[in-house]
């Protein structure tokens, strides 16, 4: 199994309700927006509770891995501005148009965090987290003159990524909207 990269891990093994949630809240409060938290717990109630907690507090629940009696929950701390996205890159395609466009060539770049990508991504998408994009541009140079479709969860990180690509001479860059949060097509995991 491939390891999921996280920014912080908290050990809640042996703790019963409500302590896993109390610790999760405390940990998230100390983290930066966009970072990923792993909560390791043995309380079976935490499976529903962590997901519910994330939903209620507006953070992004990525998924749970079960290993024997141990549950590994992954949560990404949301940015407040993710709800009100300001688009600046002019070229966009919709989720629905993407499959059709991809049939004519080009590449799909998923700029979400590795943990988000690991739990669910579009088959064939390349994972290049936004924070690594500039260093990893050489990997994409063969697509300089081809269509590059960029996707994230809600369109805001991909918008920034599109701007970076356009500044570096990529000629056909498209932001895929609204992004993975509304994606209805096939997905795969890499766990």
């Amino acid at each position: 199994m491939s390891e999921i990269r996280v920014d912080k891990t908290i050990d809640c093994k042996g703790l019963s309700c409500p302590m896993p949630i109390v610790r999760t809240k405390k940990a998230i409060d100390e983290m930066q927006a966009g970072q990923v938290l792993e909560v390791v717990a043995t309380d079976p109630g935490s499976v529903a509770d962590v997901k519910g907690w994330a939903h209620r507090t507006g953070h992004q629940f990525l998924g749970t891995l079960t290993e024997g009696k141990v549950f590994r929950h992954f949560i990404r701390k949301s940015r407040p501005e993710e709800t009100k996205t300001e688009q600046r890159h002019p070229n966009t395609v919709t989720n629905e148009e993407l499959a059709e466009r991809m049939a004519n060539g080009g590449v799909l770049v998923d700029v979400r965090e590795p943990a988000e990508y690991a739990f669910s991504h579009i088959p064939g998408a390349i994972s290049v987290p936004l924070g690594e994009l500039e260093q990893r541009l050489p990997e994409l140079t063969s697509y300089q003159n081809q269509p590059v479709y960029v996707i994230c969860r809600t369109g805001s990180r991909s918008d920034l990524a599109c701007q970076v690509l356009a500044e570096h001479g990529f000629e056909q860059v498209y932001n895929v909207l609204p992004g993975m949060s509304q994606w209805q097509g096939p997905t795969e995991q890499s766990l």
Partner: protein
Amino acid sequence: MADAKRKVAIIASQGSLDAAYKVLNIATAAAATDAEVTIFFTFEGLNIVRRNGAETLTMGPGKEHWMEGFQRANVPSVAELLEVAKDSGVKFIGCQMTMDVMGLTKDDFIDGVEVGGAVTFLDFAYDADVTVTF
């Protein structure tokens, strides 16, 4: 993010150990979920916030055998949950009328317990999204 904070009003009117858990589990979970929480301690419920009272709480009659299960499940202590509740901003109100009846003063309670009447609690409860009684 959630818009305005949710408000949770809890009435604690029983003084057994299991009642303390019911009250404090909901209170701490609600606070962790970004809710504003106020607990109104009245009648035997005041036992939960008595100074050094957390250790003297016992299971209600016929429920003594649960103690074993509580230990097995590694449930946090009442004292620990009270700390977590206070740290996460849960407000404690002791019922003045019951205190008068029982001959108790503010000094008989752990730090952080405010004293108020029914209206003090109701003032919060009127705007609450959730109200629970134990």
